[in-house]
């Protein structure tokens, strides 16, 4: 930690030329939002631990002579840091991300709208499934684990084949059918998919036998 920064004190830094102060433990994203500075995100949700999967909240940070592009939801500020939320470098990264997202979930209205704001209307990556809405941001998996306290949802496979699944790919009893995953889904992909998670009716409600 920087010696200028007293423990527990406020961290003074700059976002887009605006002087801001952050309390202990605030991330750059949280501080920016508190000061009404907009940073786009898809995977960040206040109820769950951020894990930076969508990479849309990237910002450029400059400290002394060094500058880098980081995910603002995961990065804590240091005193005298200079943050640019909309520099050319940042925009460039976001356009790349959006192009990848367009290939990943071409059916999502939210992603398309956001891409259009950055002037991205087509993608050069291969589209696997033109009807896909899920961007694998992991909000549903996180909310199921952290808020509801069960593990009815998980990611299966890795890399390009990663997809949202129930453990062992069967509808499971762990699911309490609360629909929290549907509520946090940024694109609404789970609205159509909930029934594959919550399993058959008899299992959910306990009034039947599932032979």
């Amino acid at each position, binding site marked *: 930690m920087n010696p200028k920064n007293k423990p527990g004190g406020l961290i003074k830094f700059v976002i887009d030329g605006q002087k801001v102060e952050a309390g202990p433990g605030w991330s750059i994203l949280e501080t920016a939002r*508190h000061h*009404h500075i907009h940073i786009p995100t898809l995977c960040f949700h206040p109820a769950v631990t951020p894990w930076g999967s969508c990479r849309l909240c990237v910002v450029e940070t400059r400290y002394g002579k060094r500058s880098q592009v980081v995910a603002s939801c995961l990065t804590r500020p240091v005193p005298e840091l200079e943050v640019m939320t909309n520099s050319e470098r940042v925009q460039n990264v976001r356009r790349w991300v959006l192009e990848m997202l367009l290939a990943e979930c071409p059916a999502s209205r939210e992603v398309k709208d956001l891409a259009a704001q950055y002037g991205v209307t087509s993608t050069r990556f291969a589209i696997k499934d033109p009807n896909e809405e899920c961007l694998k941001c992991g909000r549903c998996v996180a909310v199921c684990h952290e808020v509801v306290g069960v593990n009815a949802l998980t990611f299966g496979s890795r890399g390009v084949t990663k997809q949202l699944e129930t453990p062992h790919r069967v509808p499971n009893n762990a699911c309490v059918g609360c629909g929290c995953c*549907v509520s946090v889904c940024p694109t609404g992909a789970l609205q159509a998919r909930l029934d594959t998670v919550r399993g058959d009716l008899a299992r959910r409600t306990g009034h039947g036998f599932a032979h």
Partner: protein
Amino acid sequence: MSRGSTAKISADNVNLGVFLCECGSRIAPKVELADLTKLLQKEKGLAHVEVLPFPCLAPGLDRIKEVAAGKGLNRLIVAGCENRITLSKFEKALDGVGLGEGRIDMVNLRDHVAQVHAAKPAALARKAAKLIQASGAWLKTLEPATRMRIDYQGPVIVLGGGIATFGAAQELAAQGVDTIIALERSEEEEFLQAHRLFPGEYHFYDRLKRLMQEVSGSRRVRTVQVGELRQVSGRFGDYTVTFATPDGLGTQDFQVGAIIAALDWEMDHQHAEFGHDGERIICQVEMHDRLEKGRPAPGKTVFWVNDFEAGHPFTAHLSLKSAWQMAEYLRESFPDSQALVLYNSNIPILLDAFDRSRARQLNISLIPYDGSVRPTIKSDFLSFNRASDQTEQEVPWDTLVLSARRIPGTKSLKTAKILGLEVKEEEFLERYPQMVRPDQVVLGEKLMVGSACQPCDLRNAIHQGRQVARKTAALVKKGLAGELYAPLVISTVDQAKCSVCTLCREICDCLAIQPVSGPVEGLGHNVPRMVDPMLCTGEGTCAASCPELALTLQNSTLAQHEARVTALAQRLAKNEAMGFGCQWSGAAAADQAGLRRLTYSERFYLLPVRCLGQIDPIVMGRAFLEGANGLLLIGCHPEECHHSYGIDHTWSRVWVMKKLLDLCGFERERIALAHADITKPDQYVRTVESFLETIDGLGPFQRNAHTRSKLKSLYDALHSYRVRWVLGVSLRRPWETTYPMHMPNPEAYDKTLTEILTEEFFRAQVKNLLREHGKSLQLADIAQALEVDEEQAYDYLKDMGYEGQVAIVYINRMPYYDLPLSPH
């Protein structure tokens, strides 16, 4: 009945703060938050109102903490988004500043107001203010209950005598949890029983033997010999389990903290229709015996896995496995024999490549047949339709081995019944309980395991035992460390009010309402008066049905519900309507409508509840009394209720409310029940729009002294023991076809209900009339005032006189009716 006091608000030292969320740009420009702040500041009893960009993020939480500590807030409303997702974050973060669980309420401004209405920001601010004020009334009436710690005492008992016992005991011992295993047989007999119930598992018997030795040698495990299970009472952490002594003469009690029931199925011979004779045509159990004794019949042995034909397809894969293992054993031990396994091609075959090559080595044919043509047994051949080429084939046999019939077993069913599970004869005990929170203890997968619950092989039975033991051990450790707390919203019984009608026990499907241990003076044994906090789902249908109002849902009481509807109903404009939405469906669908940016009329006000079942009819009556013109209840589909038939009870209550509205002379359509699903927000929007249309067509209530007194009588009638009792016991699910007592059909049932309601409504009216007039009235006056036929009125008044609800005074031989001199 202390009706006045339930509605009274104890406003002392309530310090309420409101934080309004801007949610980026999702609430702020659409709802005029400056106006909203002003509107709220006009309210009395609000300590603080503030707008924050994001109260849910670290900067917002720090600010709330600062204000809460500075102003001593002890109640908090965050007007932002859905409470299902973010409430727990607030509760965790603000626990340290006196705003623990239950003291925080959330109003979903984003999805119920800002995102879904097209009205002007100032108008939406007024709507938001009403919703926040309703929530404020809820919090002001809250009497926070202290968190109840579950005291855990005693060991875990594993009863039922299933093979899963040993798996469970091994795991519990390994985790360092003291365990009692209650067996009705000696261990040798248990071992033999395992042979009988799981025939053909030759490779596993030795392991079972070792497992049993390990368990009996463990310091943590105590094995006791008991007779049959007699009674279980108490709650999680403190159960009393009573068994008969092994000789069946006396009883023996055990004080335990948790119960695991390991129940096994029973094996029965195949039906006579398959020609089972015990000689040439035998079951796998008999074949197993023969192999054990080393005396299999010579010649060709055909194993026919006939589970599909015998009507229990769910055990087919197990029978097939047994058949294969027996065939293998037979060929290995008796090289002269011949073996063949014939199975339905629909059975998933679990043999791997090694098994298949082994089958070739041992010359065992595995033949799948097409199940659409039933194989037929002839005296020397068995005919079947070969699956590969659809040709009728036949195999010769000397001994035919059929699958055994697996039945759940009367003993297992009896044990399950004593544990409180409603069982159906002849059906397996598999049950997927209603889980609404992860650490809930439920009968079913957490407490009841073994082959009587889920058909399984020996290895799986033991594995099931281990699994349940792992879950139990985690709870036990939490309990022993003093970290196991009851959830905040659970039912509690006021034993002074309870008259032991046992209605709650019938209603409760989570089996939480338990008898108190030992006899209650004057009432006898088995008095259901205690709520097991680890089983209770906190839904409150029981509380909303209790005829004596003896049950209370902690932190979500009737008084709170009444205060909330009052606060909202009084503020509603003439063309507005209100409603309740269940958090699993109605309110969730409303949230989803906001997220999907659907638009509907802003004239509908939704109050979220945990389950519609906790909406007491009194609350519905109160809404109309206080100014609501229409009430819409939006819940789950009947088959999807997360709780104990909550939606079905609401269904009954809504129909009763319709009848009462009719009796008052109002339109029945003013109350409606609707079903919603979180995945169908558009349907929710249509429901709301159509209800508003209905209410618009009816116009507002003509509110005057006359209608007001009628609504007051309606409200009072809902407090009467008789109405509540009838409403509780007569739960009708829409598809039920049998009716209680002498009522042969739905019409007769409905007539009886109408008669009771008419009479109780009349009684409430008479009492109100007498109270208003403050003097005695004659029959003719009463009948005229209430617009009832004099003869009918006389009958009702006579009964009221008998019951002491009115006093009859004779002046000049003319009867005058008056309120009885009340002892209160």
